[in-house]
């Protein structure tokens, strides 16, 4: 992964119509975005579509990226995630699970953190999420990484939907408060 200043340089070039820069940006970021989206959509064909739309949007609106407001990779991931959530919210989740392409593959993933170093910002966020009761930590993480709806979260945590709604609202506000007072 390139650093933020390098991604920013590429975005500025893309905003001027530089196709070679766009190709380099794609090479540097495609796998991250693909990994984020496929966790949510669980289907390769839909993920391909979303990634294609995402990069088209990046091509068009690179000039609107505000470097003071976000990190380049977060901006790109947000575009991709947003589109993926749009799609999965419009389809009923049960129908996606019934479709043969979406098979759950149980995997033995090694500790994903072993070979990573965490940025200062990420550490602070994890610390704040870590202050939530264990169930609500899981709630926030399942929602973010897997794109689960409230219904799916209610099923996963064996908790009524109204409670889930309350927990989500409260947990997010608590995380915000924690980040602001850190």
């Amino acid at each position: 992964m390139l650093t933020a200043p390098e991604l920013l340089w590429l975005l500025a070039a893309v905003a001027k119509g530089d196709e070679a820069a766009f190709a380099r940006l794609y090479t540097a970021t495609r796998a991250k975005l693909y990994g984020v989206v496929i966790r949510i959509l669980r289907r390769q064909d839909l993920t391909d579509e979303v990634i294609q739309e995402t990069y088209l949007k990046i091509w068009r609106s690179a000039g609107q990226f505000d470097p003071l407001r976000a990190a380049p990779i977060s901006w790109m991931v947000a575009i991709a995630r947003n589109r993926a959530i749009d799609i999965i919210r419009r389809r009923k989740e049960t129908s996606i699970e019934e479709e043969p392409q979406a098979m759950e593959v149980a995997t033995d993933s090694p500790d994903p953190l072993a070979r990573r170093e965490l940025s200062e910002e990420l550490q602070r966020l994890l610390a704040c999420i870590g202050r939530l009761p264990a169930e609500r930590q899981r709630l926030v993480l399942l929602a973010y990484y897997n794109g689960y709806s409230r219904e799916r979260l209610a099923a996963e945590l064996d908790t009524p939907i109204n409670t889930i709604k309350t927990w989500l609202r409260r947990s997010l506000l608590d995380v915000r408060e924690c980040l602001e007072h850190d």
Partner: protein
Amino acid sequence: MTDEDFDALAAEYVLGTLTSEERDTVEQLAAKDAGYADRIAAWERRLGTLEAMVDPIEPPVELWMRIRASIVEIRPDAALRLPEVVEAVAPREILDDGNVVVLSQRVRRWRMVSTLTGAVAAVLALGIGLSRYQPDMLPTALRPPVRTQIVEVVRQAPPAPVPPAPTPARFVAVLQRDASAPAFLLTVDVDKRTLTVRRVANAPESGKSYELWLVSNKFPGPRSLGLVGGAEFSKPTLASYDPATISDATYAVSLEPAGGSTTGAPTGPVLFTGKLVEAVPPPAP
């Protein structure tokens, strides 16, 4: 609605838990009110760092060709304004080795972080629903382990040696645009490195040519195999490629000006793509 309610709504929008009707409402609010769009941006920034924990997964090679085709003739909306305080640096090389960010250690926080990282690991370990027929999609850590079987040799009767199944020499590819009608049929003899292309689609309009490309992770860009489709059968050459590259590559046909692309890369839209499959299945043992 209180200020907190507004903010919680923006937070849930970014997190992804709103229904699609609620999402529509939020998007309309953000379109009318720049302050609300700012709230959403603030939540994207707060939660956005979580992406660092997600394993990268390589998309299919041909996705890039579709993206390239879709940006042709679309101009970016506006130039990016770079504020002076922010640094932009030309990248020297592309590194595809995941996220490594230098950090400063804060011991006070570390205890909290290390308990949560277990929770994150548990969520990420849930695995993602991918067809089991595409194990290459998964990052190395997640691929199903190769199973080796140890066969006991019975002493009394040494087993007759089993001849290895002959590798099928002939492969075919159907080049088509998604699920629509096939346009080109390729027949490849991997050992002899011959390729026959039969055009099934209509001949290209006058002033245009179809050009065939070999797309492989081994090369930075597609490699031209020449023009196809002028006559019904053509014989481009694969002589300069090794059998592994030939059999794993994606083949694509783009629409170029008459005579083909002059740049060494596709300049026109990529209309049809396909991969090789075995024409003759190996005989049963």
